[in-house]
C-alpha cells in the first residue's frame, strides 16, 4: 500500500505556460528584440526543445544570433527572481488531491530540481497549499548543485532527491508513489523501483510512449490515488 506520495513541482502541480512565455518575453524586451511567438514556443516545447534551442532558432531568423548568451543569462536572472512565481499557475483541482492525501493519512512531499528553493516555498504559501506538504526537497538538499539544463543531470538530480527521501523517511520504495511529468522523472523512479504516475502535459511533448500509469488532470490523479490506496 502507498504511504507516501511525492509530487514534482513544475508542470506537475503547476501550469508553467505563462511563466515560460514571460521568460522569453521579458529578456527579449530588455534586449530590444521581439520575442518568439506563443505559437512557436508552444509547438517547439511539444517537440521537447529547450529554451536555448528555441531562442537559437528565433535569433537566427531575426539575424541576431550573437545575442544568445545575453538572452540566456537574462532569462536565468528572470527565472531566479522570486517575482516570477506570480506567472506560475496552480493546476486546477489540486486541493481535492491534497485533501484526500491528508484524510487518508498519506504523507505528501514536494520535490523539485529547481535551484531557487525560496521561490517554490513562497509559491506554496501564496497559493495556500504549503500546509499540505510534510516537507519539500530541492537540489541543495542533496549537497550539490549542477547544471539542470542537461538531461542526464536532471535524471541524476531527481534520482538523488528521491534516494534522499527514501533514506530520510526510512521507507520501502514500493510504498512510494511519485507523480511527475517527464521522462527524467520516470527514469529516476524506475532506477529506484518507485511506482510512477505520469502527469500528461498538453504543453510539453508527450514524450513517454511507454505503457505507463497516466493521468491528464488532477481529477484523474485523485481517482488514481484512490484506487492505489484501496489496493
Amino acid at each position, binding site marked *: 500500500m502507498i504511504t507516501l506520495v511525492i509530487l514534482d513541482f513544475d508542470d506537475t502541480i503547476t501550469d508553467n505556460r505563462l511563466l515560460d512565455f514571460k521568460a522569453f518575453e521579458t529578456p527579449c524586451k530588455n534586449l530590444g528584440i521581439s520575442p518568439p511567438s506563443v505559437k512557436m514556443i508552444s509547438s517547439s516545447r511539444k517537440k521537447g526543445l529547450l529554451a536555448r534551442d528555441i531562442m537559437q532558432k528565433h535569433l537566427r531568423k531575426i539575424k541576431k544570433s550573437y545575442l544568445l548568451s545575453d538572452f540566456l543569462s537574462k532569462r536565468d536572472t528572470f527565472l531566479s527572481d522570486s517575482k516570477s512565481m506570480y506567472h506560475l499557475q496552480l493546476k486546477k483541482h489540486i486541493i481535492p488531491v491534497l485533501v484526500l492525501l491528508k484524510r487518508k493519512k498519506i504523507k505528501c512531499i514536494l520535490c523539485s530540481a529547481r535551484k531557487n528553493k525560496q521561490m517554490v516555498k513562497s509559491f506554496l504559501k501564496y497559493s495556500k497549499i504549503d500546509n499540505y506538504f510534510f516537507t519539500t526537497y530541492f537540489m541543495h538538499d*542533496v549537497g*550539490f548543485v549542477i*547544471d539542470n539544463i*542537461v538531461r*542526464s*543531470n536532471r535524471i541524476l538530480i531527481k534520482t*538523488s532527491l528521491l*534516494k534522499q527521501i527514501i533514506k530520510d523517511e526510512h521507507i520501502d520504495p514500493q510504498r512510494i508513489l511519485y507523480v511527475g511529468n517527464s521522462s527524467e522523472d520516470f527514469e529516476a523512479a524506475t532506477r*529506484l523501483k518507485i511506482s510512477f504516475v505520469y502527469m500528461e502535459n498538453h504543453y510539453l511533448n508527450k514524450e513517454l510512449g511507454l505503457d505507463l500509469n497516466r493521468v491528464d488532470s488532477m481529477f484523474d490523479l485523485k481517482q488514481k490515488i484512490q484506487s492505489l490506496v484501496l489496493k
Partner: protein
Amino acid sequence: MKILVTGASGFIGSYLMKYLSRNYKVHGLSRSKKSQNIFQISLSDKQKLAKHMKKNKYDAVVHLAASLEESAPLDMFIKNCVSTANILECCAETNVAKVIFSSSQLVYGRSEYLPIDEDHPKNPISNYALSKLICEEICKMYHNTYGLSIQILRLSSVYGPDQSPKYIIPAMMINSVNNKDIEIHHYKNGLQLMDFVHVKDVCKSISLSCKSKLKFGIYNIASGTPITANEIAHKISQIIQIHTINTSIDRETNHFFYDISNAERELGFKPIVKLEKKTLKEIYKSIVSKR
C-alpha cells in the same frame, strides 16, 4: 600490533608505512626494496609469500598493491585477482586477525544518484575497476568461508604531495610551472563533480580499520564534499599564476561524490585535511623540489 602493507612503495603505501610506524611495527612488501622493513616479494609467488608470513606472524595485513596497467588489461586483471587471492589465502593460513583491502570508487561506474553510498549499483567500466570488484567478492568469500575479519575501503580520488604527475592536481600545477595552459576541457569541461581525499586521511581510515572490532565492512573513504576541476583550478590560482582554456561545449558528464556516513559511524572516520591553499602549497613545493 604487527602490520604488513602490500604495495608499500606506492603513493599511498609510502605514506602509510610512515603513518603506521608511529604506533606499530610495520613491514612492507614491494616490487622494489627501498628500505630495511620493505621486502621484495612478488604477490604471485604464493610459496614465498606464505613462508614470509608464517615467519613474521602478522596481526593485520593492508592490501594496497594493484596493477593499473590498462595497456595489458587481461594481465592486469589476472594479476590483481591472483595476488588478492594469494594474500587472503596466506592470511587465513597464518591466522591474521584483520585484513584491510583497498578497493576503489571505480567499482560504481556511472553514478545513478548522489552522494553515492555503498549500496549504489556496481557497474565497473574498466578492467581495473572490474578487477577491484571481483577482489571484493574474493574478500567476501574468505570472510564467509574462513571467518577472516575484513574491511574493504573504497577509496575516492586520493591526492597529496609526491603523487604521479598524471593525476589532476599535480598535472595542473606542472602545466602552470611550465607556463602551459590548463586545458579544462580535458577535465569534463571543468564542471564535473569529483571527490578528493587527502592521503593522510586515507592513512587514518586504514589505521582505524586495523583497530576496528567489526568482522566485516565495506566503506567509502572520501571527503564527502564535491568539487569541480574549475574550482580546483581557481584554488591553484591562489598560489601560482595559471591560465585555463576551455574549448568544450559538451556538458554531459559523470558526476561523483560519496556518502561517507557508514565510515563515520562504524570506523569513526572523519576527513580532516581540506583541499585548500595550505594543502595545495605542500603539493606545489613537492613538485618544485623535484625540478
